[in-house]
C-alpha cells in the first residue's frame, strides 16, 4: 500500500513552475528532486538551487523519503549490515537524526550543536551496530558549524594543488638530474613538511607533516580526513539519516538501486547533493562582534594581540589567502563514490558577490579567509595531558592524538568546545592543549589574569551572523541581530 501510494506521488503531475502538485496525505519531506544536469544548465536558477539545498538540510526525512537503512551500516563505503533487525533510529550507530538541522542549529540552521547532539562516528569498515558510547567502538564528535565551509574547501583545494605541484616539481627534477630532489611543502604559509623524490619515481613521505601522504588537504572532520563538503555530505546523509545518495549507494557501485533495502530508490539524486553542498558553501563566513561594554571591547582588542604573542596564531592562523572565490561543484579531488569533476557538468557559485564586505584582501589581491586554522593536523595530546586523545581507535588512518587545527571562526557562537563537545569554557579548552600546542598552552597559563581574560574576550568576538552577506539560501533576509554565545544560551 505504501509503495503504491509513493508511486502515485511520484507520478503526480508537475505544476507549471516545475513543482509537483501537492497530494493530500503525502508525508514525504522531499517532494521534488533535482538533476545535476538541470542545475548546470541553469534551470532552476541558483537561488532556487540554494533554497532546495537549504530545504534538504532542514528536511525531516521520513520513511516515505527513504529514511532508515535496515540493510546497510553507517560506513563510508557501502557496507551491508551483518547484524539483524535494528530500530529505525539508534542514538549510537545511527541513523540518529531526521534532519541535518536537527543537530546543526546553533545559532541557526547550518550551525553547531550542543553536547546532546553529539554524533558517534563509525570506522569506515563497520559492519555492525553498536549500542555503547564507549570510545573503543566509535569516535564521539560534537556538531560543528558549517558557516564559511565553502571558503574552507576552496582554500584546501588551492593548497592541495600547490602541494601536488611541488611533488611534481620534485619528481621532474629528480628524473632530470638523476639525483634525489626535495621540496618543502609550504602552501599559503603553512608548512606540511618535506618530500624527497628519487630518480626512479618514488617519493619519500616520511617527513610529511599534518596531511595524509596523498597530499590532499582535507578541510573537514576533526581529523582533517574529509576531502570535500560533497564527500562529507554523502556520508552523513547515509550515516545520520539512512538517506542514501545515488552517487555512492546506487547501482553503479552496489549493483542495486535499493542498497539499504528500505523499499525506496533514488533517495537523494546527484542534483540534490549538489544543491545541499552549494547551500552549505554559500553560508557566510563567521565574522566578529565587538562587545558593547568598553572594558570588554578593549580587552578583546588586547586579546587579539596576546593570541598572536603567545603562539596561538602559529596554528590557528588568523587568515589564509585565497585566489578565487568561485566555488565549482563537483570538486577536483573527490574520490570515486563522490561525484567528481569530469563526471558531470561543472556548476559554479561565485561567492564574491554573496560575501561582499565580509572578506578583506591582502596586498596581492587575494581574499583573506579568517578561519583561524592552518587546515593541518597537529599532535594535541601528550602523556601529561591526554584529554584530547580519548579515543581507542584511529579514524581515517590518523593517530589518536592528532587533530586538525580547529577553525576558531564562529567559536563565540558555538559552545561547547573540543572535538567531543565536552568542554564548557574556552579557558578549559585551552587548558587541555598539549603535545605540539603545549608551549602555547603554557604561555597562556603564564599570562596575567588580565591577559588571559583578554584572550578569552577576543575569542568571544568570533561569532556567526547567519544573515551576513546574501548566502542564506532563501529570500533575502532582514539583517538580524548578532547573537553572541552568552546571549544564545538564553534564547528560547
Amino acid at each position: 500500500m505504501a509503495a503504491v501510494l509513493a508511486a502515485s506521488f511520484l507520478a503526480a503531475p508537475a505544476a507549471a513552475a516545475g513543482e509537483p502538485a501537492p497530494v493530500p496525505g503525502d508525508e514525504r519531506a522531499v517532494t521534488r528532486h533535482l538533476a545535476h544536469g538541470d542545475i548546470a544548465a541553469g534551470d532552476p536558477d541558483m537561488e532556487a538551487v540554494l533554497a532546495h539545498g537549504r530545504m534538504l538540510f532542514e528536511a525531516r526525512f521520513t520513511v516515505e523519503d527513504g529514511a532508515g537503512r535496515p540493510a546497510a551500516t553507517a560506513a563510508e563505503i557501502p557496507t551491508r549490515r551483518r547484524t539483524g533487525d535494528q530500530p529505525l533510529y539508534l542514538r549510537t550507530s545511527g541513523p540518529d537524526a531526521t534532519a541535518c538541522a536537527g543537530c546543526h542549529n546553533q545559532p541557526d540552521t547550518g550551525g553547531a550543536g550542543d553536547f546532546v547532539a553529539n554524533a558517534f562516528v563509525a570506522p569506515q569498515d563497520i559492519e555492525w551496530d553498536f549500542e555503547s558510547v564507549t570510545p573503543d567502538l566509535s569516535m564521539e564528535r560534537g556538531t560543528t558549524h558549517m558557516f564559511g565551509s565553502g571558503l574552507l574547501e576552496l582554500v584546501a583545494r588551492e593548497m592541495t594543488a600547490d602541494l601536488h605541484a611541488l611533488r611534481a616539481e620534485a619528481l621532474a627534477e629528480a628524473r632530470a638530474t638523476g639525483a634525489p630532489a626535495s621540496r618543502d611543502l609550504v602552501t599559503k604559509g603553512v608548512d606540511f613538511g618535506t618530500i624527497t623524490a628519487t630518480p626512479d619515481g618514488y617519493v619519500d613521505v616520511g617527513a610529511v607533516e599534518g596531511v595524509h601522504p596523498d597530499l590532499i588537504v582535507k578541510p573537514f572532520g576533526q581529523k582533517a580526513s574529509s576531502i570535500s563538503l560533497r564527500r562529507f555530505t554523502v556520508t552523513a546523509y547515509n550515516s545520520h539519516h539512512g538517506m542514501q545518495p545515488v552517487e555512492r549507494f546506487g547501482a553503479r557501485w552496489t549493483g542495486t538501486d535499493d542498497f539499504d533495502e528500505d523499499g525506496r530508490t533514488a533517495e537523494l539524486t546527484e542534483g540534490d547533493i549538489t544543491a545541499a553542498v552549494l547551500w552549505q558553501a554559500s553560508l557566510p563566513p563567521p565574522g566578529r562582534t565587538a562587545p558593547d561594554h568598553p572594558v570588554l571591547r578593549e580587552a578583546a582588542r588586547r586579546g587579539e594581540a596576546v593570541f598572536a604573542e603567545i603562539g596561538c596564531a602559529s596554528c590557528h592562523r588568523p587568515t589564509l589567502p585565497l585566489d578565487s572565490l568561485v566555488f565549482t561543484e563537483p570538486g577536483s579531488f573527490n574520490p570515486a563514490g563522490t561525484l567528481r569533476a569530469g563526471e558531470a557538468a561543472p556548476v559554479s557559485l561565485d561567492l564574491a558577490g554573496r560575501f561582499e564586505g565580509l572578506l578583506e584582501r591582502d596586498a596581492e589581491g587575494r581574499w583573506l579567509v579568517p578561519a583561524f586554522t592552518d587546515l593541518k593536523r597537529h599532535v594535541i595530546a601528550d602523556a601529561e595531558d591526554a584529554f584530547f586523545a580519548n579515543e581507542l581507535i584511529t579514524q581515517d588512518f590518523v593517530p589518536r592524538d592528532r587533530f586538525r587545527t580547529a577553525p576558531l571562526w564562529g567559536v563565540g557562537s558555538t559552545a561547547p568546545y573540543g572535538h567531543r563537545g565536552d568542554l564548557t569554557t574556552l579557558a578549559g579548552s585551552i587548558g587541555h592543549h598539549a603535545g605540539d600546542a603545549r608551549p602555547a598552552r603554557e604561555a597562556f597559563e603564564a599570562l596575567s589574569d588580565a591577559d588571559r581574560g583578554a584572550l578569552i574576550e577576543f575569542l568571544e568576538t568570533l561569532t556567526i551572523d547567519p544573515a551576513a552577506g546574501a548566502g542564506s539560501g532563501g529570500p533575502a533576509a532582514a539583517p538580524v541581530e548578532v547573537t553572541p554565545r552568552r546571549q544564545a544560551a538564553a534564547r528560547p
Partner: protein
Amino acid sequence: MSRAPRLAATLAVGLLAGLAGAGPASALDVPRFVDEAAVAGIEHRYTGGWEHFVGGGVAAFDCSGDGFPELYFAGGTDPAALYLNRSRPGRPFDFAEVGDTPLDLTGVTGAYPLDVDGDGVQDLIVLRVGGNAVFRGLGGCRFELANEVWRFEPGDEWSTAASAIWEAEARWPTIAIGNYVDRRAPGAPFGTCHDNHLHRPDGEDGWGPRRLLRPGYCALSMLFSDWNRDGVPDLRVSNDRQYYRGGEEQLWRLPPGASPTLYSRAQGWRELKIWGMGIAAQDLTGDGYPEYFLTSMADNKLQTLAREEGFGAVGSELAPAYEDIAFRLGATVHRPYVDGETMPSTAWHAEFADVNNDGFPDLFVAKGNVEGMVDFARRDPNNLLIGGPDLEFVEGAPQAGVVTFARARGAVATDLDLDGLVDLVVVNREAPAEVWRNLGAGGTVPDGPRAMGNWVGLRLEQKGPNRHAIGAWVEVRAGAHVQRREITVGGGHASGRAGWIHLGVGTAERVEVRVQWPDGQWGPWVRAFANHFMLIRRLEERPVYWFPETAPVGGQGAGQVTAVPDEE
C-alpha cells in the same frame, strides 16, 4: 596439514564480505575501450601454419626501468617483436619497436616475464616451436640469451605453456614447460601428445637437467598456484582433448625435494576433459582459495573447491575436488553473443582484471576459431565479462566497444599508460594485434580517459632471490571488503605479465594492504591511499609511493628504436 583447512562450506559463506546479498547487478560501469594499436605504432601479427594454430602470446613487463610495461609479441613464423612503451597517462598510446634485439626470434609461441636471477631486471622465458630460450635482462631493454650460462635445456619440442615458482628454500626458480603435440611421433597428431618438462634449480645460479612431467596431454596452459593455501604451490595443467587419448586436466603435486606426483582420484581430483587452452585464477568467492577459469571450446569452466558433504576434504587435508560454477555465475560464454550465432565458441587466453575499478574482478576471454573448424563459430568475438557484487558476470564487450572478429589467441590485461585503468592487448592469428586503451567512463579519445572506481597499483619487494615475491598472496581491505590476489607466473594462453598489481577498490579512498610472503610469513597491514602506485617492502609498515613520468617522450610513433634509456 593444511594451513587453513576449509571444510564443507556453502558458496554463500564468505562471499564478498560487506556487499554479500546485494540485489541483482543492474548498472555497473562498463568502461569504453578504443583500439590504439595503429596510433601507438604497433603492427604485429601472429602467423604460421598448423604449428601456430595455437600459441600467439604476448608478455607485458617493464624492461626500460621507467615503470611502464613494454610488450613482447610472439610472431609465429614471423619474428617476435619487442615494443618499447613510451606512453604517458592521459595521452594516446605510444610505442616504438626495439630493433637489434636477440628476442626477435621466429617460431615463438609465447613468453612469460620473470626476474630469474633476482637482480631487479625482468628476464624472459620464450616458448618456441623447437628450442625454448631464457633471456637475461640487462637493463635498458637489452637482453642476452642465457640458456648456456644458466644451464637451461631448450629442448626441441613444440612448447606452448610455462609457469614458474620458487620452491621452498630455493634460491633459483623452478620452471615448468608445457608441450603440445609430438609432431614427429608416428601417427601425429592424434594420441601423440608430448610430455612436459620441469626445470628445477641446481644450486643458486642455474638449472639442473630437466625432468619429465609424464604423462603429457598436450598442455596449452600451466600455472603454479597454491590452491589449498598450504604454502606449497602445485602445478595445474590445462590440456587439449583434441589430441590426447586417455588424458584429462592435471594437478601436479611438487613436494620440495621430491619428485612430482599427480593428484589422484583417491585424493579427490576429479576427471575433467576439455579443450583446455588457458587458465586464470582469482579468489572470487572471498574464502581465501582461488577459483580457476579454464578456457575451452564451447562451454568454459569456472572451478571452485567442491562444497558437497563428503567431498571437501580427504581426512584432514583439503582435497582438490572442484565443481563448476561457470553456469551459475554466467561465465560459460560458450557461444558468441552476436549475430544470433549458435555455433560454439573457441576460447584461448583468460585473465581476471578489474577493468572498471569497482572492486569486483572482471574477466577477459580471448576467442577465435582455431583456423577453419566449421563446427565452431567463425565470427567469435572476445568476451569482457563484468563482475559484480553478486559474483555474477554480465557481458560487457559490446558496450565496451571491444567487439572484433579476428582470431584471438594470447592477451594481457594491464595498465599500459599507468592512468589507473587496465588496458587490453590481444594477439590475433594472421591479423593485426589489438591494443585497447581503457578510457574508463570517458567516451572518446579527445576527451581522454575518465576515472571509474578508485584503485591501487602495488609492487612487492623482498630481499633474496625471489625479489618480486612470486607465490605471495596480497590482501587489500577496503572497509569490510577484502580482495585477495595470488602472485603467479604462468597461466593464460602463452601470455604473461609482470609489474604493477592492479586492484580496483570501488568507492574506498583508503585501503589496508597486507602480504603473505612466499615463505608463509604474514606482513603487517599497511595503510595506503587509493589512486596511487606503491611499493610494499617486506617488513615495512608503510608503502613507498611511486609516480609515473608524465612528460611526453617526443616523437610520437617514431618507429623503431635501438637504444633505450635505462632508468634502473
